[in-house]
């Protein structure tokens, strides 16, 4: 069974305006009477609840129907109602726990949501962002057919975002690959294996923490000399990329080596016990920037790795987040293509449940909040078109919405929060000016060096 697109509801953004129901009733019944709407927003004290068909994977309505009038479409996942077969027994409404299929007096039979063929009227009518049509399903379906090139049971922490990034990335890149995983969480969870056993189905190796891009240079250059098409790929942590590995990374980027370098940024040395790296943000607790009578977390801002790589005039540079998978896959595809021509650098933010101190089930939500507050900005760069924003930086959520969900910021004083807020605003302004082509640095990066 594949994954399906779905309509998602965020009650905290809903104000009960009924616009969605009006739109649905108009689209489906030709009247504005919300009683005819297939989506029902129901007040529940101070909040709202959604009564609508979830297009379940194991639908009780379909199981209950004695006349085979309901059927789930294997292609788009929508449960369709066939009026020519329906006997009006209403057993389907008894089966549904979501109020997703109900008797409609005007129509004289049950009605339910059909997702408007993939372009739902309700979502278009909601201008508060309470309803979203999530369309990442096609990615999962497409990628689901590709082989997972890591073995099952890598020993990542529960809820690890990095493991998701690894599996998604390598599936897409494919088996004609040599993979470098410098010391850190990625080999630490077993991708290069232990005592003669491997965790990866493609050639994989431990470079030194310092020389990932250089070793890949040698691999790639020799295969090019032999006329063989082999992807040279790094899955490196931020420590191996931004600190001790930066020299070799910078050298390979300057030379335009045909390498895809993916930096999985969990903002520190999480594998070795959560020490600070130069990608650790200001104020963050780490085991080497501890909190005590005098210590209040890291006292410097994070090094902006993707911008530094952009200034190398790489063939492609982008930032990505697992909370925005369509965007991530789009960038992954572009990065893979760019790495056949030159150096491609993909910087993917990877919230760490263990090191950042938040419940493991909230990982994607943390990643999403980082982006929605502009703490993390999604953009891409190539030397021909310059920098392009992947989503607008306007209307960012207040920074508190991100900081308050992470244990590593629990100790922050108001002035530290103000500093972070200032840095985020400054960074957003800078990125925006680059995107608009106003910054002189942009002109330099686009035109290349003399």
């Amino acid at each position, binding site marked *: 069974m594949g994954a399906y697109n779905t309509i998602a509801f965020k009650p905290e953004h809903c104000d009960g305006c009924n616009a969605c129901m009006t739109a649905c009733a108009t689209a489906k019944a030709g009247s504005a009477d919300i009683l005819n709407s297939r989506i029902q927003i129901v007040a529940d004290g101070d909040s709202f609840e959604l009564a609508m068909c979830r297009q379940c994977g194991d639908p009780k309505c379909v199981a209950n129907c004695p006349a085979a009038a309901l059927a789930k479409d294997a292609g788009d996942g929508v449960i369709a109602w066939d009026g020519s077969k329906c006997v009006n027994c209403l057993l389907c409404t008894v089966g549904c726990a979501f109020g997703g299929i109900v008797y409609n007096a005007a129509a004289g039979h049950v009605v339910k949501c059909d997702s408007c063929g993939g372009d739902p009227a309700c979502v278009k009518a909601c201008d508060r962002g309470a309803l979203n049509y999530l369309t990442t399903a096609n990615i999962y379906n497409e990628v689901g057919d590709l082989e997972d090139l890591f073995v099952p049971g890598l020993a990542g922490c529960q809820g690890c975002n990095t493991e998701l990034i690894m599996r998604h990335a390598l599936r897409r890149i494919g088996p004609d690959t040599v993979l470098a995983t410098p010391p850190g969480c990625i080999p630490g969870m077993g991708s290069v294996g232990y*005592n003669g056993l491997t965790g990866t189905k493609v050639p994989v190796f431990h470079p030194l923490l310092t020389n990932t891009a*250089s070793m890949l240079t*040698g691999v790639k250059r020799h295969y090019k000399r032999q006329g063989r098409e082999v992807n040279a790929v790094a899955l490196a942590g931020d420590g191996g990329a931004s600190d001790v590995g930066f020299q070799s990374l910078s050298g390979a980027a300057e030379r335009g080596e045909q390498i895809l370098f993916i930096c999985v940024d969990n903002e520190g040395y999480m594998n070795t016990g959560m020490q600070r790296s130069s990608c650790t943000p200001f104020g963050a607790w780490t085991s080497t920037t501890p909190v005590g009578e005098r210590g209040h977390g890291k006292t410097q801002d994070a090094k902006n790795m993707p911008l530094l790589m952009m200034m190398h005039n790489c063939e492609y540079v982008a930032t990505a987040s697992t909370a925005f998978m369509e965007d991530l896959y789009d960038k992954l595809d572009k990065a893979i293509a760019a790495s056949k021509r030159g150096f491609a650098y993909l910087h993917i933010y990877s919230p760490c449940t263990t090191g950042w101190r938040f419940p493991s089930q909230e990982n994607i939500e943390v990643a999403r909040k980082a982006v929605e507050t502009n703490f993390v900005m999604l953009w891409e760069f190539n030397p021909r078109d310059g920098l392009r924003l992947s989503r607008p930086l306007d209307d960012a959520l207040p920074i508190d919405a991100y900081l308050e969900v992470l244990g590593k910021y629990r100790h922050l004083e108001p002035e530290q929060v103000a500093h972070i807020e200032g840095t985020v605003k400054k960074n957003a302004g800078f990125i925006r000016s680059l995107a608009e082509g106003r910054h002189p640095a942009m002109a330099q990066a686009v035109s290349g060096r003399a």
Partner: protein
Amino acid sequence: MSAVLKPKSKAIVCDGNEAAAWAVTLARVDMVAVYPITPQSSLVEYLAKFVADGKLNAEIVDVEGEHSVLSVLHGGVLAGARAYTGTCGPGLAFMFEPYLRTPGMRMPLVMSIVTRDTLTPQSVWGGHQDAMSVREVGWIQMYCETVQEVLDTTIMAYKVSEHRDVMLPVNVCHDGNYLSYGATRVELPTQEEVDAFLPPPSVNWHAALDPSRPMAVDPLTGGAGGPGPSLFVRYRKGQCSGMQHALAAIEAAHEDWARIVGRRHAPLVESYRMDDAEVALVTLGSMTGAGKDAVDEARDRGERVGLVKVKTYRPFPVQAVARALSGVKAVGVVDRSVSFGWNCGPLYQDVIAALQFAAQRPAAMSFIGGLAGADITTDHFGRVIERTQALARDGQVGETVWLNEKD
């Protein structure tokens, strides 16, 4: 050593750095990674020029430092390339992290060390301290006496390095200043001769990064439980065996070289006028020429003096050294570097340890000279001979003698 000029071979005049570049060219090296450092710089310039001129058909990678030089070659070798580079002194120090890893990965490659004294005091001149500082890392080390030896040894090093019973990296050491810049007549073997001597590369049959035969290269190995401890011992013991197999492989390579190219060098140690010698000098590298002259002068005076040149320093040819020195009364070992822990020269330490296996164990003394580019002249060697003759008479081993102390 006898030079047999064959009609096919070509004589050129060049220095040691150019000779090494010719060797790399003739050995059909696939990949060269370079970063300049005195006194190696002209070597990489020659390589770049040879590539630019179409003489050397190799992938040349100009990287941002020595650490990446060797790291690039690691990747190249794991993909199947015959690889080469050269460095020295601070460059070797900066390279140390991948350098340390190379022999354990059983990676055959050749790297010239254009020997240079180490910092500090700040110095850019010759001395063996750089190469000696890495003598226990697991690389094979060979020291050259002449520019011709630089060329021949560098090509032979590939045959040793890629020998299936060896599979270890080789440092060909040639002295900064004296050999790097000293130009002499050199006979260039023909490509046909070198092709007959050296088979195509086979460097990654055991450990490869190749999608057609996927494997994990260098997973975590060891620990206190499971298969870890015995597996780790197997790797370490295998590395030591490879090192010992190198002794025979080096002798065989020299034999093949003499047969095909017509030039014979001593593979492990060279004994010079050692018949009936009572006193022996032990030397390493380019100083040997002055040492031999001093021995000739002493022989002219009727003194029974000989010289043993150590050509292969790692693995240390224990039996060959013991055999060569067995029977003399005293030995004077001349080093161009220092063992800080023992207040003597490192070659001296090796020699006195090897003498444990000599049938008759002579007394031995340490002499240190030629640091940071200083010359070791026949006069210096004359003093070494005098002091060693005194040792032969009274058996009193004195303090280490610093030859250039009063220059």
